[in-house]
Each structure stands twice: as structure tokens, then as C-alpha cells.
């Protein structure tokens, strides 16, 4: 078991799912994030466009990601995010997944998303380093 002790999970990369949910067809932002995360040394699973909340939950559970980043530009966050949160809870995956949202989220909608369990919301123009730093500091460390 000494081989096991050597590894100890310290060097394991942070695993993220970058998901595009709903109907909007713009994934340039998601692509940019995915590449920046990769360059930061993260393992990024990219969902592709037009994912239903259930599909995102499926991907997050199966890929066992530390971080789920949802990109929403369509304005449908108030209906989509709760569905994702419910799905994660159903699979017992909500507690140790860092949930962040990127995109255009009006200020008045943010408190509700935070109450749901969204750890951070990154609007347009957020410096990439800020997002990366946030993930580094807040990604759950689990054995």
C-alpha cells in the first residue's frame, strides 16, 4: 500500500464540467473558459451545446466532477438552475460539487441563485484569473 500512500490525491487535477444548458447557441464563452481551465491544469469535460438539465446532471454525476460550471446566456437561469440542483441532490452529488454560473445574470436574480447553492456568479468581463483562482480555492478537496 505504500504506492497508494505516495499518491495521496494531492497531485490530482481539479475536474470540471463546463455545461451549456438550454436553448442559446453561443458557446464562445464556454470554449474560452474551457481552454483557460485546461491551461490552468484542470481537467475539463465539455458538454456541448443545448443540454437539458437532466443531461447535465447525468454528465456531472458520471464524470464525478469537483466543479460544475454552467454557462447561461438565454435568461432562463431561474428555471434551469433549480432543475440541475435538484438532479444533483437526487444523486447525492450536490454537497461536494462546487456549482458556479457564468453568463448574463441580472443583479436582482443573483440572491435567489446563491440561495439555491450557486457558489459564485461570473458575469461578462470577469477576469479569467479571478474565476480560476476562485475554483482553485473553493473546489472541494475530498478523499
Amino acid at each position: 500500500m505504500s504506492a497508494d500512500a505516495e499518491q495521496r490525491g494531492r497531485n490530482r487535477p481539479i475536474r470540471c464540467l463546463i455545461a451549456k444548458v438550454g436553448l442559446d447557441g453561443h458557446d464562445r464563452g464556454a470554449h474560452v473558459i474551457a481552454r483557460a481551465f485546461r491551461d490552468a491544469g484542470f481537467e475539463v469535460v465539455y458538454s456541448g451545446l443545448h443540454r437539458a438539465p437532466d443531461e447535465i446532471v447525468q454528465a456531472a454525476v458520471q464524470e464525478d466532477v469537483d466543479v460544475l460550471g454552467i454557462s447561461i446566456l438565454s435568461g432562463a437561469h431561474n428555471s434551469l438552475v433549480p432543475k440541475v440542483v435538484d438532479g444533483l441532490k437526487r444523486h447525492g452529488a450536490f454537497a461536494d460539487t462546487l456549482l458556479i454560473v457564468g453568463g448574463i445574470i441580472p443583479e436582482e436574480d443573483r440572491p435567489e441563485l446563491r440561495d439555491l447553492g450557486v457558489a459564485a456568479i461570473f458575469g461578462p468581463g470577469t477576469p479569467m484569473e479571478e474565476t480560476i483562482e476562485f475554483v482553485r480555492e473553493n473546489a472541494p478537496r475530498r478523499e
Partner: protein
Amino acid sequence: MAGDDTSGRDLDARNDDLVAALLAGEHRALARVITLIENRAPGHRDLVARLHPHAGDAAVVGITGSPGAGKSTLVDKLAAAYRDRGDTVGVVAVDPSSPYSGGSVLGDRIRMASTNGDMDVFFRSMSARGRLGGLSTATTDAITALDAFGKDVVIVETVGAGQSEVDIVRTADTVGVLVQPDSGDDVQMLKAGILEIGDVFVVNKADLDGAARTVAELEEMLHRRDVGAGAGKHGHGSVSQSGGESHADGARSDGADAATDWEPRVVETVATSGEGIEDLVDALDAHAAYLRSSGVGEAKAQQRHGEKIRRLVRGDLTELLEAELDRRGGVDALADRVRSGETDPYTVADAVVEPLRECLDGQRVDSERTPTAAESDPGDDRD
């Protein structure tokens, strides 16, 4: 992190829970087990050992081919076809990681459109993480987990770019190699030794110009592969070990004589439209049936277990010896002593390995109760 001293009992309890939950069909547990396996985390060996008795029923299909050949799309349609007939499916998609940051973008999931939302397709992306050596071990362990979970079919998808990928895909029972029409792939394939590992060849994008020619070329090359195989008794079941050397290995792979019966098939598909997928499933099924009826499947499984044992022992030894090197001041310090003329690499290597050799010799002596002079010379100098 707290709990750095995770006690064996904690790990035991955790593994108890995980194994029970996995066998009970909890997706979360399966996902977590694969993570532990992938991270080579503490206790992962015990996990795999416990799952091993529950595995062995799944048909494991490897899909490989050059980048852009359409592997992910084909795997998607293949998974959908298996689902249509009621089989549950596991997919392990292996992607290379960036050599610069160690990070990676795992995009194979994008293509899994046909089975999206269907939890009975368990799709897992794996990154090579820059340590290719351990990747085939991690992949086979992940397959064991999916198999134990109860998946009827497990598909392993990987870019057929190098030896390590070839190693991965060879752990499958049945190997499908994707070829693009008119792409110059033929040369590439020969280089990578991939022609030898295919049981079924898939000319994907068969609606493109040149498909017919590629099929013809493949048929011809496969024919040559049979003729050119030394003793002529060179079926797939005997392909083993190191790619290009497969002829030599085939000769000593006993119990696989019946292997001559399998003629690799060439199938045409258009993965984007689903055309030809039924033919592909038929071909893969036919190979699986052949493995069962000929006994070659058993022989291959035994050979795989042997390779796995070797790989594990080699890996463990390497870790032990790396630790020993560190205890002796690290390889850099030792190399510096060689550079300064103080010693030479052979003397250093002997000094590092000697205690281990003595220990193993001593054990053998103990167990045989026939003392020899093995322990008489504890000095570093050997002749």
C-alpha cells in the same frame, strides 16, 4: 488536509460502503470508484480486488482510430444500438492531456447525443494525465468497475496514436479499428502496429469518395497479414505483447491454435447518419461468439491477467526503488557523484538493488529450507 493519516480501518469502511453501493446500482458510487481508480488513491487496490469477483461478464469492445476518424460519433451510435436491444452500456473515453499544463479538455461527451439523459449509458472521460504508463492499468480497472456494476457492454474509446493507446485498446475482447476513406491512414496504421490488433475494421464516412478503394486496400492488407504471419498459424488470439513483434509472440502463445478461424471483417459505416451500424454490431457480435466457441476468449483473458500481474509488479517495484533512490539522496545527487568520477552507474544500481535481491533470495531460502551461500557476501562489490 485533515485526516492525512487515514487509517486502514477508515478506508476499509469506505470501501465497504462504496462496493455495496456500486453493486446495488448507484451511479454516484460507480463514478466515485472510477475517480479513486483514476487517481490511484489510497485503497483503490483493495476496491478493485473486491470488485474483481463480480466482473467478467461484460463484452468489452475497444474502438480506436486516428483523430477525426469519427470515433466518438460512432461510439454514440453503437451505444444507442446496444441500448435498443436492451443492453446496458459503459463507455470509457480516453483523451490525451496537454503536455504543457497537464490539463485537458475532454470533448468526447459532446458527441454522445443519441443516448444523452439515459443513465443506463455510463459515459466516463479519462485523461492521460501525462503518465501514460499507468493509464492502461487505470483503464482496465475502470472497465472492471463498470463490469462489476453490471454493464452488458463496455466500450473503450481511444486515439490510436501510440503504443500506450494500443496497449489500452488491446485490453478489450474485441477491437474495432476506424479508418477514414482515402486519408493515407494505411501507412499510419502499419506504423502503429494497429493493423495487427483489429478484429473488425470500420471504414467510416463511407459516403465520401475513396471509400471503396480504402475497403479494397484494407482487404488486401489483411490478406497479406494472414499470409505473412510466419508459421501461418497467426490468428488474432495469439497477438500479444509488443505490437510489431506479434508474430514471434504468437508462436509461443499456447492454447490459441484455433485462433486461425477468425477472419477480420471490414465494415462500412456513416456514423453521422447511423448507416452501417447494424452491420458493425453484427460483426462485433460475431467476434464475441467466436471468442466463446473457440475458447480463444478464455486464452486471451488468461494472457491479459498475466500481463496485468506483470504490470502491477513492475509498477510496485519501480515505486519501491524510487523511494530507495530518494533515501540515498536522490537520483540527482547520485548522478552528480557519477559525473564527478566518484562512482559509476552500475555500482550505484547494484548498491540500490542488492538489499532487495538478498531479501528475496533469503525468503526463498527460508521457504525451501535449503540454506545456500546467498547471504554470505553483504559487501557492495560484486564480480
